């Protein structure tokens, strides 16, 4: 048996408007995200296919991190003849704990994947204490 599994298609998650209207007309989907934690930082990885760095906005306000990304429209002369997925921008928010050092957040976008590193404040980092014998 191969340990490689086959990828499944999952429908893109639409942003739920909760009765309100989305602010951006072209922001439609919630990106898939992984969130990881190590001793120094929280790492957030988001799939943002089709997003160029200049069209990505990462914003931290009152302890909420929001990423908003737009995608370029298709060339006008392209006529869709067969479609399996929808195209649109992305938005997702995360509540940050107080332990994040907001000033030191860094972002990298490569191959349609955003990696955000959210360093923990010095006092919240895990420190190993040597036990003297």
């Amino acid at each position, binding site marked *: 048996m191969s340990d*490689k*599994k*086959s*990828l*499944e*298609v*999952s429908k893109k998650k*639409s942003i739920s408007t909760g*009765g309100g209207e989305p602010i951006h007309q072209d922001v439609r989907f919630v990106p*898939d*995200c*992984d*969130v*990881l*934690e*190590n*001793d120094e*930082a*929280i*790492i957030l*990885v988001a*799939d*943002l*296919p*089709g*997003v*160029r760095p200049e069209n990505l906005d990462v914003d931290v306000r009152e302890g909420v991190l929001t990423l908003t990304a737009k995608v370029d429209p*298709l*060339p006008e*002369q*392209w*006529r*869709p*003849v*067969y*479609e*399996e*997925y929808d*195209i649109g921008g992305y938005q997702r928010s995360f509540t940050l704990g107080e332990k994040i050092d907001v000033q030191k957040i860094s972002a990298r976008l490569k*191959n*349609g*994947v955003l*990696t955000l*590193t959210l360093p923990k404040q010095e006092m919240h980092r895990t420190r190993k204490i040597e036990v003297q014998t």
Partner: protein
Amino acid sequence: MLGTWFDDGLFERMERMRREMNQLMGAFRPFVGGGVFPAINIYDNGEAYIAQAELPGVDPREVDVTVTGNTLNVKGKREIQPAGDKAAYLRRERAAGEFNRAFKLPEAVDSGKVQAIFRNGILQVMMPRAEQAQARKVSIKAE
């Protein structure tokens, strides 16, 4: 009221129905027996068919695109790189794995002129129609 109809995603459902009808009637056919990932969109710009697929985080070197006659085949794998040392997952939504997808186009394309580009996590395969499939103006000789 009308508002609730919209909230129910009526438009989205109708759009999906329209799309499914197109796919049933259309000449584009996913290869039966092939995989289902990635989802593929196909466009026509007059001279070429353009297939696009979203493959965020996939290394372009891990993707094989082949065009034989009128069949497009996209296969490869998506690996999730461990982000940093000793990191533990708090939330995991992104999937890794292999994919192999075949797709039949309604007419032959010029496999010698096919170009594939990988940009911002989107694979784009530009497939010019084969010479004989392109509309050609035939001049009429007057005698």
